[in-house]
Every structure is written in structure tokens, then in C-alpha cells.
């Protein structure tokens, strides 16, 4: 029997999908990307925008028409708003939150499906370990993290460290779809990171909605985010291997100098900080319920520049948030000018169903939002080009992650997640570190020439084999 799993949205949903795949393949289901040939069809839903929610309704409508012709089981998980949950229950055969994943085999069996293999049988993707450990069934908040993910990549991995959010930014519905912040036990995180490093993974991203509030939900019996990073840094030092660890997303409210000092102390903790600003205006930040002011944000950036002078700085910005005046937008533009981001994910505001701000007038016109988006995009391109130009002539370490769109070129990222392309058709370099001498700066990317590639590849291969 075959399954097809569609995941929409963010890295957290991708990470959840990797665990769902483990469970399904452990039951004997074979993966297919062709919906028409699957007996089990699932979707990891996203509620960030109405468009994403519409995709779920469109898919299930199509799948339910197929049910008239053949046996088919459907399920939905992921970020689901309470109002949609009620409707999905009538359209899908199964609906579960990601914490309920350990119970998925039982749910499927209730539909009379006899799997090709038992849950812990030979078809398991990780036969050396029980697929669904007993403790994962008893711990309803954290149990699903015991399930070993079926990683999408052989060299880049996402490691969830928490689920849910307690910040209640007014533009966001995550607290209503994923619930309260729950921190994953640190020992489990260390074990997963250690296993990935031993298996030769080069890039590991610690995931959470507010990673730097890690542990605050279990103050008396869990370590802090800085301590968690230190533990990961120690794994890096002990391994002697080369890899980079990232985290996303932190909240400026919880960012401390201690976190930055730990990053500075360990080579495997990457010099790249994603610090969402959202707006450069204090009043808009109040309306967004962001719990910091520009003075506080500025101090965090100053700390980053002081403690991690080589770090690249990324951010998220929303333009045209409800009630945003031209003057308030101008402050955001000034903030971009001041902080000179290497990368900014800029979005025109659109009400997210279920979020508090969806109850307010979306009163900045679409044309004006587009204009503001364009202004900031141009600013970003100017800053990015200038920052990249300053790197030309240097030789940097690059993790090759695939073929470039340009024929005959490979593409990868620096430790600071800057995109670098270089001429090579040696696809064996994908997943390896190489040295690249930068020769040309473009907007949001760099071009270079491969340097000492064979030596680097040989060294990294030897590390994997040892």
C-alpha cells in the first residue's frame, strides 16, 4: 500500500512531516509523490494565510471525489484553527495534532486497514529502535519527539526543540493552532544532534516558534536556551567534525548576551542570527503585541555586532500592518538603513484567520502595501549588494546544497547563509564543505571559484568514514 503526504508551510511542518513519514513507513506504507496511486492521503496543514487553508479544502474535496471509485483513507494534521478543525472533522477520515502522532497506527487500524508490516516490524525505517517507544504514548505533550524522523536530506536536518507559542503577536495564529509553548527534553535534543553529527550531517537547525524562550515552560527542571546551545557546542567540540548549527526563530524579547557569548565560544554554532523586527515603529510594535521597543531591539543588535562581529543578520518585516501610517512605515525603512540586514523576509500584511488582528480593518490599500514592499526590497538589495561586495576577494567555506539554476554551476551557502554559486558539475560535492574564492557580488548572492575542492572533499569523507 502506498501513501502520499503533502506538507504546506514552514520548516516546523516539514519537520512534523518527517516524523509522520517514519510512522507510516514503519507500518509498511510505501511512499509515493503521486496522489492518484496512493491508498492513504495526508496533508500537514498550514494556517498562516487563507490561501494555504484553501489548499487544504481544495485537496480534500478532490480526494473525497476519488473515494467513490476506490478505497482511500485521508488524514490531516499540522496547524489547524479551531474553526477549521470542526469542518475538517467532517471531511477527513482522521484528524490529529502532532502530539497525537504516536496514536496514528491505532487510528488507521480502526478503519480496518491491515498494514503490510507490524508497527515495529521489519519495514521500519529504523529497525534497530522501536518505532514508537512506549514513553511516547504516555507523554501526550512531548511523546511524538521520541519518533525518529525520516529526514528529507542526507546532510541538512531540522531538530525541533519546542512546539507552540505563548507570545500572542496579534498578526499570528500559531498560539491558536499549535497551543502552548512546550519544550522538548534537552537530553533528547542532544541525542538527536549527536546522532546527526555521527551520520555526517553538516547543517542542523534547531526549530521552534520562539527558540530562545526554550525551557521557560519547565523552569525548575529544564535548562535554558543558552545552556542548550552550550551543550550542542560541546557535542561539536567532542566530535571533531565540521558542521554548522542554526536556530530559528528567536524573539528579540528573550535574546540575551549570554546566548551570543555561547555562540562565540563554539565553532559549530553558526555566525548567523535571525532577529525578526517586524516593524521599526514603537506604536506598531505595541499594536502587534511584540513586547519590545526599538531601543531594546537596537541594544540586541549592538550586542550581536560586539560579540559576533562576523555574524550575518537576517530579519522578518511586515509592511502595511493594520493602521500603519506612512510615518510609521518610514521608521521601518530607517531601521533597515540602520541595521543593514544581509537578508530580510518582507511580507505585505494580510489578515491571518484566527489571529487577533484579523478582527481589525485591513486599512492599508493593496497598492500602498505593494509600494512599501517595493521600497524595502530595494533597500535590502542595496544593503545586500554592498555587504556582499565587501566580501569579494575572500575565500569562504561553503556547504554545497545542490545544482544551481545556471547550467554548469553548483550552489551552496556560507556559514552566514549567504548564497554562493560556483562553476562545477561535480555533483559529488553536494552535501560537502568546499572553499570558494569569491569573485563577484550580486544582489542577495555571490559568485566564486572553487578552491582546493578535492582536499576538502577527501577530508570530510574521511571524517564520515571514521
Amino acid at each position, binding site marked *: 500500500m502506498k501513501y502520499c503526504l503533502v506538507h504546506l508551510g514552514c520548516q516546523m511542518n516539514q519537520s512534523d512531516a518527517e516524523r509522520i513519514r517514519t510512522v507510516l513507513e514503519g507500518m509498511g506504507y510505501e511512499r509515493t509523490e503521486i496522489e492518484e496511486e496512493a491508498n492513504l492521503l495526508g496533508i500537514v496543514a498550514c494556517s498562516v494565510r487563507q490561501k494555504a487553508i484553501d489548499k487544504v479544502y481544495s485537496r480534500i474535496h478532490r480526494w473525497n471525489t476519488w473515494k467513490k471509485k476506490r478505497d482511500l483513507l485521508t488524514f490531516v494534521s499540522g496547524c489547524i484553527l479551531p474553526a477549521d478543525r470542526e469542518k475538517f472533522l467532517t471531511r477527513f477520515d482522521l484528524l490529529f495534532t502532532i502530539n497525537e502522532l504516536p496514536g496514528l497506527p491505532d487510528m488507521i487500524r480502526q478503519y480496518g486497514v491491515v498494514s503490510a508490516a507490524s508497527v515495529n516490524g521489519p519495514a521500519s525505517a529504523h529497525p534497530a529502535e522501536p518505532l514508537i517507544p512506549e514513553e511516547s504514548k504516555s507523554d501526550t505533550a512531548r511523546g511524538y519527539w521520541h519518533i525518529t524522523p525520516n529526514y528529507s536530506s542526507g546532510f541538512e536536518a531540522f531538530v525541533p526543540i519546542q512546539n507552540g507559542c505563548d507570545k500572542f503577536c496579534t498578526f499570528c495564529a500559531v498560539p491558536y493552532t499549535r497551543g*502552548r509553548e512546550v519544550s522538548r527534553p534537552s537530553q533528547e535534543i542532544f541525542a538527536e544532534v549527536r546522532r546527526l553529527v555521527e551520520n555526517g550531517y553538516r547543517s542542523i537547525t534547531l526549530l521552534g516558534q520562539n527558540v530562545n524562550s526554550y525551557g521557560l515552560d519547565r523552569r525548575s527542571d529544564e535548562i535554558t536556551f543558552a545552556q542548550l546551545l552550550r551543550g550542542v557546542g560541546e557535542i561539536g567540540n567532542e566530535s571533531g567534525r565540521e558542521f554548522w548549527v542554526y536556530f530559528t526563530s528567536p524573539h528579540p524579547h528573550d535574546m540575551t548576551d549570554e546566548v551570543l557569548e555561547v555562540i562565540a565560544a563554539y565553532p559549530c554554532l553558526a555566525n548567523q542570527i535571525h532577529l525578526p523586527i517586524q516593524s521599526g515603529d514603537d506604536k506598531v510594535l505595541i*499594536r502587534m503585541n511584540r513586547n519590545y*521597543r526599538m531601543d531594546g531591539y537596537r541594544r540586541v543588535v549592538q550586542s550581536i555586532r560586539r560579540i559576533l562581529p562576523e555574524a550575518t543578520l537576517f530579519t522578518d518585516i511586515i509592511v502595511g500592518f493594520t493602521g500603519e501610517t506612512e510615518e510609521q512605515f518610514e521608521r521601518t525603512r530607517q531601521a533597515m538603513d540602520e541595521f543593514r540586514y544581509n537578508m530580510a523576509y518582507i511580507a505585505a500584511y494580510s489578515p491571518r484567520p484566527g489571529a*487577533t488582528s484579523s478582527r481589525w480593518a485591513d486599512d492599508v490599500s493593496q497598492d500602498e502595501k505593494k509600494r512599501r514592499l517595493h521600497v524595502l526590497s530595494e533597500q535590502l538589495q542595496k544593503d545586500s549588494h554592498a555587504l556582499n561586495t565587501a566580501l569579494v576577494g575572500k575565500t569562504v567555506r561553503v556547504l554545497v546544497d545542490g545544482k544551481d539554476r545556471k547550467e554548469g554551476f553548483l550552489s551552496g551557502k556560507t556559514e552566514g547563509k549567504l548564497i554562493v554559486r560556483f562553476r562545477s558539475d561535480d555533483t559529488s560535492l553536494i552535501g560537502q564543505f568546499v572553499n570558494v574564492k569569491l569573485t563577484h557580488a550580486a544582489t542577495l548572492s555571490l559568485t566564486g571559484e572553487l578552491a582546493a575542492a578535492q582536499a576538502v572533499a577527501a577530508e570530510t569523507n574521511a571524517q564520515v568514514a571514521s
Partner: protein
Amino acid sequence: MSQSTTVPRLQALRHAVHHVRPLAEGAFVLRLEKNGLEFEPGQYINVGPAGEVDMREYSVYSTPGDDYLEILVKEVEGGYVSSRLAACRPGDEVNVDGPFGFFVIEEEARHGKPLQFIATGTGISPFHSFARAYPELSYRVLHGTRYLSEQYETEAFDQERYLSCVTREEGGAFHGRVTDHLRQHPVDPESLCYLCGNCDMIYEAFDILKSQGVPPEHLFAEVYF
């Protein structure tokens, strides 16, 4: 930055209604069983009809030491949740999720630091909790209402520290809006200022206080939308 030390529960729970205490102008206090909910003064909870998905945010009106939970509600015309809560009877149940929020007073600020509380309407709710939970606070509260009757249960405050700003009738300590009072009576720039109420008041007060030398980092806001 203020940092709450409480941890929200993992899911909404049902709380029995003890009673609805009518105040004035469609406002009322909803008293609920506490049901083990731990919170800090200033935090809010989400409350809605039992078994339904609709919930709204309400600052907690009672204190952590009380053996019940109270919220101050103004019935909004056409507002689904507030009208359902207004119709509650003793023994009914409501959904309660939380606590949430960072509108709290840090330990060191509770001892001698000048605190300026500024509220409009039911935005007085978190200050009611502050004043009763922390009798040692060195605070002044400005409460803006349209009518005298909207000054709910002011006995919770030290009367020498409570100043009412009333816009639509005489009889308050100040005739006009809280922002008018702020302009005429600048606050001590060393104060920590806590603002709770509608967004327009908070925006206006924010500018006034900044112009009076209060740094933005000393301005804490809880917006009622």
C-alpha cells in the same frame, strides 16, 4: 523587559461560574472557580462559552491570593463572547485558557520605584489586581471614563493615589481625558508607566510620556482591542 514567571496550562479547562456581579453601563464582574490556575497580577486569560471555539482575552481582575478567579467584562453591542458571558448563571461553565502576557511588575520595581498606572474603561482591571496584590506599591493611577458610574469598585485603590478623569459629566477629580491630564501634569520621568485600555489612548499617551522624558523602555502597554 518584564518577564512573567508563570507557565500557561497546556489546554483550556472548564471553570464553573460562581456568580455574575453587575456593575454599571453593561459592565460586570464574572467570578469563576480558580481550578488551580496560577497567574501573576497583570496577566490575562482567554475566556469563552464552554464547548465552543470563540474566546476573548480578559485581564485578570482578582489577585493570585484569592481562592477564585475574576474578570471585568463590558458587554459589547453585537459581541458574541461578552453577551454569552453576561448570560452566565451560577453553576454554568466557561472555557479558560492561560495565563498569558508580560504586563507584569518585576520584583525590584515593586519596592519604592514610582509607578504610573494609566487606564481607560475596563482597562482598570490589571491595576485592580496590582493594587490588591501588592499593597507596598508606590503608584498613582489615572482612570479615564465617560461617566462616574464607570469607576468600578475603586475601594481597591488607596484613594489618595486614585485619580478619575471623567469626560461626559462633572464630579470626577479631573474633567477631561487622561491624556489631557497627562499634558497638564507631567509625570516623573523616572516613573515606570503602565498603560491599559484602547489603542488610541495608548498611542497618544505614549507620545506625551516620551515628550516628558520617559524612555520607551519604561512604557508598558496592554492594548484592549
